[in-house]
């Protein structure tokens, strides 16, 4: 499992674009929003939690189709399926690798983007905490969507349609945490809910992902 993780990570680093592309996309969304809604600081700081979370979600979505597509095309995926490692483990590792290449850099860079959107100073802790706890769920759900559509030639658009409704609870709790943090309210409840979703998706979704992979490899 560790070897697979290291292989995926080094592939992402050496092929280029793994870390950078998602971050650049995140930056562009954050830069575009003030053009859309106007530069008033009060408006921006009010919508900043939602924008940051939606941007993180779209940036995660952008790189989903690369989780399995390349492995499927060059035949690595059947090899992984026949290896002694259970396919559930492969699914889990793929999700973790996706999180390390997209979710983790996003989480670390998010405070800088919050600065651009004039986020309330008291919300930075909650922004970091909610992204750190919530983006792994985005990666696991996305891995499931990628497994469903891996056999399709033009699966990208369909995958967005399948994955985005699944992101709704994560988005609600994540953005709610930051919003409450910015207003100085009790933000721990939505944060705990978010952690619950993440733990639940880590526990259950690898099984769904691997069963979808098995069907597609049949």
């Amino acid at each position, binding site marked *: 499992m560790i070897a697979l993780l290291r292989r995926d990570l080094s592939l992402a680093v050496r092929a280029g674009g793994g870390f950078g592309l998602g971050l650049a996309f995140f930056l562009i969304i954050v830069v575009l929003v003030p053009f859309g809604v106007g530069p008033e600081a009060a408006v921006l700081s009010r919508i900043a939690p939602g924008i940051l979370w939606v941007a993180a979600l779209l940036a995660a979505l952008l790189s989903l189709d690369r989780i399995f597509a390349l492995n499927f095309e060059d035949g690595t995926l059947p090899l992984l399926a026949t290896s002694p490692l259970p396919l559930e483990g492969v699914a889990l590792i793929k999700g973790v690798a996706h999180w390390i290449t997209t979710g983790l850099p996003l989480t670390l860079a998010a405070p800088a983007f919050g600065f651009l959107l004039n986020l309330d100073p008291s919300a930075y802790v909650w922004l970091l905490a909610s992204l750190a706890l919530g983006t792994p769920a985005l990666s696991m759900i996305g891995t*499931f969507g990628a497994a*469903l*559509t891996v*056999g*399709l030639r033009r*699966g990208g658009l*369909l995958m967005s*349609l*399948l994955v*985005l*409704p*699944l992101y*709704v*609870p994560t988005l*609600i*709790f994540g953005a*709610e945490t930051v919003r409450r943090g910015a207003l100085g309210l009790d933000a721990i409840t*939505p944060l705990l*809910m978010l952690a619950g*979703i993440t733990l639940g998706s880590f526990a*259950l*979704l690898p099984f*769904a992902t691997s*069963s*979808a992979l098995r*069907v*597609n490899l*049949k």
Partner: protein
Amino acid sequence: MSIWEYANPKKFIATTTPLVPWVLGVAIACLVVGLVWGFFLTPDDFRQGSTVKIIYLHVPAALMAINAWFMMLAMSLIWLVRRHHVSALAARAAAPVGIVMTLIALITGAIWGQPMWGTWWAWDPRLTSFLILFLFYLGYMALWEAIEDPDTAADLTSVLCIVGSVFAVLSRYAVNFWNQGLHQGTSIPVATGERTISDVFFVPLLICMVGFGLLFLALVLIRTQTEIRVRRIRALEIRMRS
């Protein structure tokens, strides 16, 4: 004699073909009686005026929209466990009916909300979760269409249906947390049995609910038969070509 005998497509068609006209007939009779009674023979509500009458379309459609998804979930589980093709096809057949029911509920709700709440749409938990349900139906149907091999499509949509159900329920409670509602609570709580709706409105509403349920059943049976026949034609074409 077990219920699984009807999983044989031939037996399924043979049993349901004579049933369909009856179910459809009773459904139409119920709908005509319920809607005419509801629209023309009940008094106007003293606060809502005649707009209250949209309840006879809105509530049954919303009820069936949710139950259609549950039926698809049950059919998906049966397909994954017992590999009966009829159940996969029934799940496929139910999706378009369910999405239309969802749309009816959303549109009639908007028409009712305009004079009553002063807005066509509000980001209320019930409304929002219905919109999310609509998106789930869309994704489910799109996945069926996208995959060519029928067995693969049945497997993948079944997995999606199960995962989607979990997330749909999660979303339902998450949006409750996110925004307090404008939508009134149910007038007919099944668990407590205390109704806040007068019998004058309740009896035609009940008839409409039965009518919508039977209509859903009839449409799903017809559509399932169609799917089975499409499958047969495809098999025949392949055999003739080889």
